[in-house]
């Protein structure tokens, strides 16, 4: 753990720790930073923002990089850490769905509950519920995630419905190129025959 002088102590419940004097930790709550040698490879140091969403802010850098970058940029990053979790969404219902057909103003979808009590159903969803950048993804068969709940942010709580279409790469360009060249090879075999 970090001592009150802002430097790493040598012992803690997590194991033995290394003092990294090049890092100025004065600006941080002493309970929230953990400096330790990496457990799974040598010559590395872990700076972990403990417990306040800890792993989000954990950073592993080798010693030279640590001295080069951490004092300025990374500590600035750690300072901003809280801002990122200031907004929390409390989900009441969550579905995964797929598009059945697309109309002029709505699309019809089959949805299955991922969270909350709800049976499978079909729903007509207004296109205007969908973000502009997802429009191109609204096609029969497209998968989306739909959550209804409360968004708690710095300005209070509001009810929200969030629909996000799936962006999933299951085939790479390389796979497509390989498939194309295999198809060409097969075609030429047939042509030769």
């Amino acid at each position, binding site marked *: 753990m970090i001592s009150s002088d802002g430097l790493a102590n040598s012992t803690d*419940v997590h194991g033995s720790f290394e003092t990294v004097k090049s890092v100025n930790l004065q600006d941080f*709550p002493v*309970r*929230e930073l953990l400096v330790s040698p990496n457990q*799974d*490879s040598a010559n*590395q140091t872990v700076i972990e923002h*403990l*417990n*306040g*969403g*800890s*792993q*989000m802010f*954990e*950073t*592993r*850098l*080798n010693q030279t*990089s640590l001295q*080069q*970058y951490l004092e300025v*940029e*990374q500590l*600035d*990053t750690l300072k*901003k850490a809280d801002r*990122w*979790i200031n*907004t*929390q*969404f*409390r*989900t009441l219902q*969550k579905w*995964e769905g797929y598009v059945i057909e697309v109309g002029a103003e709505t699309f019809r979808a089959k949805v299955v509950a*991922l*969270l909350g009590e709800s049976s499978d159903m079909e729903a007509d969803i207004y296109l205007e519920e969908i*973000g*502009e*950048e*997802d429009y191109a993804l609204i096609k029969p068969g497209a998968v989306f*995630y739909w*959550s209804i*709940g409360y968004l708690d942010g710095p300005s209070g709580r509001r009810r929200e419905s*969030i629909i*996000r279409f*799936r*962006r*999933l*790469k*299951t*085939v*790479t360009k390389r796979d497509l190129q390989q498939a194309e060249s295999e198809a060409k090879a097969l075609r030429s075999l047939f042509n030769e025959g």
Partner: protein
Amino acid sequence: MSPQPKIQTTSIVVVGNFTPTIFQPSWFAANDLITKQEAEAATVEIIAPPIAQFDAEWLRISVTQDRFMAQTAQEPYYEPLRDLVISVFTLLNHTPVKAMGINQNFHYQFKDSAAEQAFGNRLAPKTDWEDVLTDPKFNTLFVRGERPDEFNGYIFTRAEFSTKIRPGAFIEINDHYQLAFDTETVEAEIIPDILGSHWAESMARGRKIVEKIISLGDFK
């Protein structure tokens, strides 16, 4: 109504060999993993050879030379987070990797300070320690369980008092897949396979563990 976490985050961490400078918002947008809008509005904290880190609207990406992490603090984006990591390692399928963790973090609020003390005493009874320590107090509980599936690894749980929610408890679940040992690595194409087939199970297991822990205390 059962207690609700005041803060919760989910992350997917992959240990391996990475080139951090690849992982810029523009790369994610160019591969259609996030929207252009999200990429343009992203806050880049640092892009440098040893580390890349940025926040998009719902997403935090943090990559060092030995560690990739994608994280969200918003539940509607848990599945998009999974899809994003599947896509990253479909695109970078030859990247050498050695471990993956599906991690869930929760902060719950106690009903009052007395409930906080009672919870600490429940996990580490003072009476067990009073003969060897003066005024012993609960600090952190680590519990490690074996994986119930065909993979190597473990399920790791940590519980301690929250530094964010007062009085509160912080609970961390690390669903760890050990994919290779010592200096060995495997190709990252295994990551999409595991996430595609074991994600729901890992997430449900994490929630079950958390429910168990909060059943030991009096939470709001």
